[in-house]
């Protein structure tokens, strides 16, 4: 453990945004925004530097307080964490730029929300902390930080619907984190350690472990809005301010997924069975179909996009059954693990870009129209060319048409599905794509249709449109560094690992 390089970056990645957030509290409205934006740029810059550090030296660690685990807490930045942190930085910086301009827009803008900045910086710190954390309890604290920030941001708009949605979200988040913590308590009680690395070595299969896995998975599923615990997501994401919706759907839900992936693959391998993987995959599959169908049925743009998040997160869950091998299969012989992991990572990143772009575009449409009912999108192409383009591109990535990042994810997912022989997931992937195409083209169809009445669109700042377009393009551009990224991910960390099932798995309690 100590042969890994110690680096100050992990600590700075959490500390700096908190420091800047605290600093911004001392300023008034405009000052807050300025400090906030500068803080975002600084944090993103730091994240990139840290990414390069990991790229050069492999996993870096930071032993907080100098106390080695299990007594102390260690931050670990391996390639998986680095990729997530990098994604947060890139997407985050664009959303920050958008927010800066969006809140300043005088006429049709939503007004200034100075609190956005400290909360977003805290959220960023929480996300970085979560990706870096290597300690079960510390993960709990970070998800609480994220949860409170996320809900606070979600209710920032002050709308009544946002309040209701926010409270629902908060209650779900608290319930989820309490369930998670219950699992942590049991794990600590049965092993006496909280460090993920050590736990992976000492955890023994048994009822307690299985139950802990169950509650932890339950808690995290609630947090990441996995089916059937997705109920809180659409109202919360759709009622928030545009930059906030983008943050919530692009980044926040990925945090819980990240922990789930880490814990399943690194810690709980001993008590995970093939059936557990199938079950979680089933939840994902239902989410894909159900979420897409719900999105298809909505009549307001933001609700469509929010429901689509439920579906897109479902794809993430669908990689789990591929990562858990059938009894008798060894990880070395399973050539579908790498495609499945690649699918997961690309789905996360492509969705982050595409969904952020989608929500930011929706924000612009609200700015232009005053509402987001889709029947008013008529002649969007004529009035807001760039926004329409952004929606089109982001939609194409969500559907998974080539050569987008979403295509890469679906390609790899299908490849993994075929290679593993679990062909029954394939129709779900395709049906999801079709349904996604259904709602994306429903929007585009309206966008191309001629307007019934003229002049309903108020002008919006072009710079905002361009930010949305850049993010949409980003969901395509991420395909190009894929080689490098996968190589990087394979160099350190859990990427590409699989769980070999014990032949006699736990009889019950597998989620």
């Amino acid at each position, binding site marked *: 453990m100590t042969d890994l390089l110690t680096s100050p970056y992990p600590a700075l990645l959490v500390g700096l945004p908190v420091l800047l957030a605290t600093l911004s509290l001392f300023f008034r409205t405009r000052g807050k925004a300025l400090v906030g934006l500068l803080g975002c740029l600084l944090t993103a810059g730091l994240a990139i530097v840290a990414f390069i550090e990991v790229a050069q030296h492999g996993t870096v660690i930071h032993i907080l307080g100098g106390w080695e685990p299990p007594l102390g807490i260690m931050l670990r930045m391996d390639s998986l964490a680095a990729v997530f942190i990098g994604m947060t930085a890139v997407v985050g910086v664009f959303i920050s730029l958008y927010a800066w301009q969006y809140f300043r827009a005088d006429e049709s803008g939503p007004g200034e929300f100075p609190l956005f900045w400290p909360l977003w910086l805290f959220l960023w710190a929480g996300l970085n902390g979560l990706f870096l954390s290597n300690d079960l309890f510390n993960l709990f604290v970070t998800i609480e930080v994220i949860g409170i920030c996320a809900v606070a941001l979600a209710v920032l708009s002050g709308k009544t619907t946002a309040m209701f949605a926010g409270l629902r979200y908060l209650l779900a988040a608290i319930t989820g984190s309490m369930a998670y913590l219950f699992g942590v308590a049991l794990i600590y009680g049965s092993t006496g350690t909280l460090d993920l690395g050590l736990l992976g070595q000492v955890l023994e299969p048994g009822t307690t472990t299985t139950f802990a896995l169950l509650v932890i998975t339950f808690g995290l599923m609630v947090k990441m809005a996995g089916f059937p615990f997705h109920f809180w997501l659409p109202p919360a994401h759709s009622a928030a301010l545009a930059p906030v919706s983008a943050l919530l759907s692009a980044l926040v839900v990925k945090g819980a997924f990240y922990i789930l992936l880490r814990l399943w693959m690194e810690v709980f391998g001993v008590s995970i069975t093939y059936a557990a993987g199938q079950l979680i995959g089933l939840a994902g599959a239902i989410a894909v179909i159900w979420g897409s169908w719900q999105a298809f049925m909505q009549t307001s743009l933001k609700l469509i996009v929010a429901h689509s998040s439920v579906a897109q997160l479902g794809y993430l869950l669908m990689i789990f059954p591929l990562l858990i091998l059938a009894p008798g299969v060894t990880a070395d012989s399973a050539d579908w693990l790498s495609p499945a992991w*690649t699918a997961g990572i690309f789905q996360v990143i492509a969705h982050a870009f595409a969904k952020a772009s989608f929500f930011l575009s929706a924000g612009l449409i609200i700015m232009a129209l005053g509402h987001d009912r889709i029947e008013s999108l008529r002649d969007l*192409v*004529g009035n807001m060319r760039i926004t329409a383009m952004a929606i089109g591109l982001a939609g*194409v990535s969500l*559907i998974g*048409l*080539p*050569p987008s990042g979403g295509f*890469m994810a*679906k*390609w*790899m997912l*299908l*490849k993994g599905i*075929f*290679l593993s022989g679990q062909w029954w997931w*394939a129709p779900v992937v*395709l049906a999801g*794509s*079709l349904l996604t*195409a259904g709602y994306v*083209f429903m929007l*585009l*169809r309206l966008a*191309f*249709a*001629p307007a019934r009445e003229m002049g309903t669109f108020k002008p919006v700042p072009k710079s905002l449109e361009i930010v949305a377009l850049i993010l949409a393009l980003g969901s395509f551009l991420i*395909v*190009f*560094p*894929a*080689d490098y990224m*996968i190589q990087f991910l394979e160099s350190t960390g859990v990427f590409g690992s699989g769980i070999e099932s014990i032949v006699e798995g736990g009889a019950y309690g597998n989620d």
Partner: protein
Amino acid sequence: METTSVLPLLILVSSLIPGTLILLLREEQVALRTFLNLSGAVAKVGLIAWVFVGYLRGQEYTFFFRLALDLTFSLRVDQLGLFFAALSAVLWLVTTLYAIGYLEGGKHRRRFFAFFSLCVTASTGIALSGNVLTFFIFYEFLTLSTYPLVVHRGTDKAVEAGRTYLWYTIGGGTVLFLGVVGLFVLAGPIYFGQTEIIADLISVYPTQLSILFFILLTGLAVKAAIFPLHGWLPVSMVAPAPVSALLHAVAVVKAGAFGIVRLVYDVYGIGVAEHMNYLNVLAVFAAFTIIYGSLRALFQDDFKKRLAYSTVSQLSYIALGVAIPGVLTSTGAIVHLVHQGIMKITMFFAAGNVAETYGYKNISQLNGIGRRMPFTMGAFTIAAFGMIGLPPVAGFISKWYLGLGAVETGSYWVVFVLLASSALNAAYFLPIVYRAWFYEPEYEVSRLRSSGRLETQALLLIPVVVTGLLSLAAGVFAAAGGSPLSIAREIAEKLYMP
């Protein structure tokens, strides 16, 4: 001699860049837009001619680009691809001229021409694809870039047609996706022409590969409008005439037919396809579609709809030719890719001219139109004779080879299908011709668009005459070197060389 060359990429870029740039222009910048459009179209034809000459000298052009991981983007020039690319490029040039005339003063022309260029990019991309993945990418790209063209008019009917179009093509694309991934998993990244890969694997995974063949075929059959997946084609005739002309004579439908040709000849190989009895299934569906399309066409009064059903029918000649193994049938199928294209585009141009000049959209209104628009209807008549299979127009050549091939392989029922289809073709095209030339005009109408002495605008007239003459020339000079037939024959012979 195989070297990497950017020429194939340049062929794509020659329409991609104008398309993208036009999208960024303002609506008013007509001159610049037209310049971009035409220079792109001319450049494309020039580049293809250049590559063609090089290819004849034995130069091979390939372009590789590793997109990411195991996804390789590959362009490769082979005879078949070049054949199709040349068709697309030439007809694009002609249609661009036509569209400039046709849409004069219309709305959203920027968007139209931009997507028009993108669509041709996709079409040439399909032609020059070196592997299955690249083909798939362009296949989906084609769907996306044609959608705005289909809904271009923006009317409810157009939007509705666009919806139908999308459901069919996206559905087909999704099915194709499944097949492409499946093929990739079983056989790796297949480059066109590497039929030995499947030939080796077929004994290992007979069931899986068979299922995949039909999955892939289904995905392609949507765009090729093979019954029962043809529903989108007649509906999307609401698009403006140049769109119908280019897209539904060349780009979209031919992409599907071309895909089937590739699938059978260059992925699975005729040997495997024949051995596993895939072709019989294809033949049955194709034959049925030929008859079905013709029968439906018979009862359409809407000029373009009749043409559309005729397309459904004619396209399946290609599929039928592919489905009957033999040098002659293959020649017929491949040459029909081109022949059908130039003949059908002539007919759509003619229909567009009539509608644009006099506002006639139905066949029953066409009494005596030939006297007022002799050139247009003359070209139409040539094309119609070709469709029916009268010598010496191009269509005769295709049918002749198909028929000969069928006799040679003993598939006499195919001859019967061809004859029946020809009779039906005659039954629905001849009345138009007859009506146009021999009926008395019932009443005088004023022209919608007048342009002096010519029967209609020059930009509308020239393309139709050119393509009409081309369809005649392709038949008359079929025996000459460099004619579509001789090239097709060469391709077909290579296919059956041991």
